[in-house]
């Protein structure tokens, strides 16, 4: 048994998803190789060999792999696929774009967005937007799997001694031309992808008070969300609405402030890793699903929070 992990990176550094996928790989087997496709990736290779769980780092370094074009990367993976029993990629737009191409050419049924691994042949994945969980079994001799990064911890990035191996680039006819990438440059990330979301509800009482949410979000480099009630009352625009009829989010941390926790709102954020609720009503339904609940006046709590976060930053630096 042998597992190949497709690294996600920006040529300078690994994206954190790579570490989650390696962690997932270690649940399958300990013979794990990391494939890095890119241009001028020597530094990355050196970083990769330190990752504890890896036995080998495989690089394909070529200008042609400068920008991530699925049609160019899939032949590279294909060229070494037969050496493995499992090939893992992150279930990010990167991995989702590339891996199925490999699956098609190998005539393999890919398993997408895996959130748990029971054994090397049995995987757990969400269906119907996570409203049902499927346990699937694949007897295929090679399994292609995309891994949901947030479902696994980060692997240990130091202490490893992996070998580095280069493999040749494979030229492909050009049907796709990369023009450019517009990266969202904002300290305030997109709500759908943010790692931390601060949401405000009716408890904020008016649109002006929502600036407290924005300030707290800035401190934590978080996205700003809102309950339907806040949106309907005009406190904030509906692009911030989290819930059954708004956006579904699954950040690492979701802080719900002044939100009662009607089931419609919960439907939009129940997959968050950690939920914090701040509400002056101890009976608010949101406390039934919050990992950490703080009963108090949000107009006092938020300034306190910001002060504590400042203190924390001071201590850290």
């Amino acid at each position, binding site marked *: 048994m042998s597992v190949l992990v497709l690294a996600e990176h920006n040529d300078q550094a690994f994206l954190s998803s790579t570490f989650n996928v390696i962690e997932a790989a270690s649940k399958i087997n300990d013979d794990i190789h990391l494939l890095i496709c890119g241009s001028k990736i020597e530094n990355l290779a050196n970083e990769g060999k330190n990752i504890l769980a890896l036995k080998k780092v495989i690089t394909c370094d070529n200008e042609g792999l400068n920008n991530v074009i699925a049609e160019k990367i899939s032949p590279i993976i294909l060229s070494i696929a037969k050496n493995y029993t499992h090939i893992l990629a992150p279930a990010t737009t990167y991995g989702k*774009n590339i*891996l199925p191409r490999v699956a098609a050419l190998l005539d393999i049924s890919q398993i997408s967005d895996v959130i748990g691994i029971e054994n090397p042949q049995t995987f757990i994945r969400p*269906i119907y937007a996570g409203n049902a969980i499927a346990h699937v079994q694949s007897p295929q001799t090679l399994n292609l799997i995309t891994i949901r990064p947030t479902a696994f911890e980060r692997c240990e990035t130091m202490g490893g001694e992996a070998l580095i191996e280069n493999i040749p680039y494979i030229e492909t006819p050009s049907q796709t031309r990369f023009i450019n990438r517009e990266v969202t440059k904002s300290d305030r990330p997109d709500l759908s992808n943010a790692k931390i979301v601060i949401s405000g509800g009716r408890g904020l009482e008016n649109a002006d008070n929502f600036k407290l949410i924005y300030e707290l979000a800035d401190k934590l480099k978080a996205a700003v969300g809102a309950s339907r009630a806040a949106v309907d009352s005009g406190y904030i625009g509906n692009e911030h609405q989290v819930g059954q009829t708004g956006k579904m989010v699954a950040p690492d941390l979701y802080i719900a402030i002044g939100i009662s926790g009607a089931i419609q709102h919960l439907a939009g954020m129940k997959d968050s890793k950690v939920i914090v609720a701040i509400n002056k009503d101890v009976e608010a339904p949101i406390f039934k699903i919050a990992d*950490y609940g703080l009963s108090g006046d949000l107009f006092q709590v938020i300034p306190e929070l910001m002060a504590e976060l400042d203190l924390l930053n001071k201590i850290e630096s």
Partner: protein
Amino acid sequence: MKVLVAVKRVVDYKVQIRVKSDQSGVETQNVKMSVNPPDENAIEQAIKLKEQGVASETIAVSIGDDKSQDVLRTAMAMGIDRSILAKTDQLLEPLAVAKVLKSIVENEKPDLVLLGKQAIDDDANQTGQLLSALLNWPQGCFISKLKIENNLLSISREIDEGIENLELTIPAILTCDLRLNTPRFASLPNIMKAKKKPLDVIDIGELGIDTTPKIKTIKVIEPPTRKAGIMVSDVKELIQKLKYEAKVI
């Protein structure tokens, strides 16, 4: 330019699905079924291309049992010219779907195939990419903008970091994001007209494709319900927990 649109009949996105008590799957009996939402965006885009004079003919194709005819009628009521049902009572994996689509593509010879980026039932997000590889055509996945000029496709696609702009040659496969357009309503007169539009049914068996599933679903269960955690006494404690226990800040 001929445009082919793949359409899937799925449980309506507004339905609260229920997991069957025998864990064999999700309850679909007596449940509202509709066009997969991103497929609506694909349909809308195809119709827009026809209205712009870029597409000469639009065809919708669906793979499923007889009831899938209704999503094809909906597509035609929105404005698609004709449709094809590849009939099967089996549940097909994305790979098999892609093979069936390949067969239809080889027959119909479209210049552009549009699909929704993922089906809201199985959430696999594979079919467009699989088809693209099988045909060796370029793929543009999760597109939110499309321009066609000089037989080149200029697309903007939604990626985690933002937007990526690519240029593809034709023929190509595009999978559509919800942000691509606003699907139109099918008006009553158009629904009437659609009843007369051609809907061809082909039996999947005639295509000679092996559609045996390679993956077995052992069980389908409800997601674990979140339980209440703890109440913290003050902000200090909250920060401590978030930093050192949960490790999320």
